[in-house]
C-alpha cells in the first residue's frame, strides 16, 4: 500500500507540500517514486527563483524517463536538498523525509485550498489502478 502521510497536501502530479506558517517543504510522493523507479538525477532550481503554482520547478530523472517536478503553490525557492544532488536515490528510499526536494516561501497560502487532502489523494491514486 502506497504511503500517504496525513500532514501533507498533494497535487495531481504527485508532489506533496508540508506547510509551516508561510514556509513549505516540497517533494514527490511514494507513489511517484515507485512509478519512476531508480532516480539517478535531479535538476534543482536556484535558490531565489520564483515559481507559479503548478509551474515547473525542476526535473527528476530516473533510469526509465525524465519527469517534470511542478510547484504545488506559488512562491520563492529558499533552499534545495543538497544531499539529493549526489544521492538522488534517497528520494526513492525516503520520499517524505530525507528525500525532500525544495523549501519555499509561499506567496499565497490560500492556493493550498485547491490541493488534495490525504484522503482525496488516496482515492486519486486508487483510481489510477495501482496503490
Amino acid at each position, binding site marked *: 500500500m502506497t504511503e500517504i502521510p496525513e500532514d501533507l497536501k498533494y497535487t495531481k502530479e504527485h508532489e506533496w507540500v508540508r506547510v509551516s506558517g508561510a514556509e513549505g517543504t516540497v517533494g514527490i510522493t511514494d507513489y511517484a517514486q515507485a512509478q519512476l*523507479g*531508480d532516480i*539517478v*538525477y535531479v535538476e534543482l532550481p536556484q535558490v531565489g527563483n520564483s515559481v507559479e503554482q503548478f509551474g515547473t520547478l525542476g526535473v527528476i*530523472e530516473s*533510469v526509465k524517463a*525524465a519527469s517534470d517536478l511542478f510547484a504545488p503553490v506559488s512562491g520563492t525557492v529558499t533552499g534545495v536538498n543538497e544531499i539529493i544532488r549526489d544521492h538522488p*536515490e534517497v528520494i*526513492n528510499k525516503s520520499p517524505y523525509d530525507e528525500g525532500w526536494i525544495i523549501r519555499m516561501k509561499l506567496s499565497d497560502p490560500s492556493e493550498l485550498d485547491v490541493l488534495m487532502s490525504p484522503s482525496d489523494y488516496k482515492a486519486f491514486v486508487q483510481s489510477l489502478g495501482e496503490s
Partner: protein
Amino acid sequence: MPVQYTSILEEHRAVRQAAGLFDICHMGQIRLSGAGALECIQHVTTNDASQLQVEQAHYSLLCNEKGGVVDDLLVYRLHDTYLIIANASTAEKDFNWIARHCTQHVTLENVSEQYGMLALQGPRSSDILQPKIDIDLSTLAYYRCGHGHIAGISTLISRTGYTGEDGFELICKRDNVVALWHELMRDERLKPQPCGLGARDTLRLEAKMALYGHEIDESINPLEAGLGWVVKFDKPDFIGKDALLAIRNSGVQRTLVGMELMDRAIARTGFPILVDGKEVGIITSGSYSPTLNKNIALGFVPTEHSQPGTIVEVPIRGHLVQARIVPTPFYLRPRVRKR
C-alpha cells in the same frame, strides 16, 4: 515481462554479480526444415550458416536489397532443422520476409506460440543450473546448444544471452515454461533475481549489443552499425550483398559510437548530437550505466568525428551537455583463463 520486478538497478547488479532470470517468451521462433532450409537461410541472412556445426548457433541479420537491416536474430543449427530466434515485434515481419524469399524445398513454421523461453544470466548461472539439468554444462561452449531435462521438462539450452555475462537461454514447450521458472527459483539459498525489461536494456547497452529499432533498422546498414563482422562477403549471393559491397568499397558515411556523458543528465533515443555547434548525428540509445556509475549512450556520428576521445554535445532540456566518444563495449566481463 514487466519493466522491473523490484528495481532496475537492483536487477542489473544481480545479473553482473550473481544471476538474473528473464521471461523472454515474447521472442519469435521460426523453424525451418527440408532439404532447402540451409540454402534459404544463406539467401536471406548475412552470416554464413554453412559454417554452423550441429548444435551451434550464431548471430545474424536479415538485410533488404539496399543493405538495410530487416531484423537481427540468432540462427541455431539443430539435428534435422534450423531454428531462428527473432525479436518479438518483428517475428511476423521476418516470417513473411523469409517465406517470400524462400519458396523451394523448405518448410517454414512460426512456432513462437508453441514454445516458451527464459534467459538465466550472470556469473552464478552455471552454479544454479547444473544441479537441475542432466547435461554437463562445462562442455557447453559459448554459442553451442544442446537438449537436456530440467525437472523432467525437455529443454533446448544454449550458452547465449543479451547481457554480456555468462548464461543460458532455455526453450521449452509453452505449457511447461511456468514450471521451468519455478524450478529455477526453487533453491532459496541460490536462486536468480527476476529481471525485467528495464534491466535487460541497461545490461545490453553496457555490453554494446544492438536493439532493433535503435542501433539497427531498415534505414541502417550493418557496416555503419559496427556489425561488419556479421556480414560474410565470401558467401555466394545473399539479399543485400551487392549494396553492402558497394558501401564497403566507398566507406561508411556515419559510424555508431559509444559515448560517456560528462553530466548527470541522460541522453535518450532521438536526441541530436552536435559537433562544433552543428547537428550531425543522433542518439540511438542512452541510459544510466550502473556498472560504470556514469551515463552512457550509443549514437551515429559522421565517420570523420568517430574517433575515441572526440567531444560532442547533446542538447538535454535546453542546455548542451558534453559527451566523450569512448571505445566499446562499455563493459567486458572478466574472463577466467582455463588451465
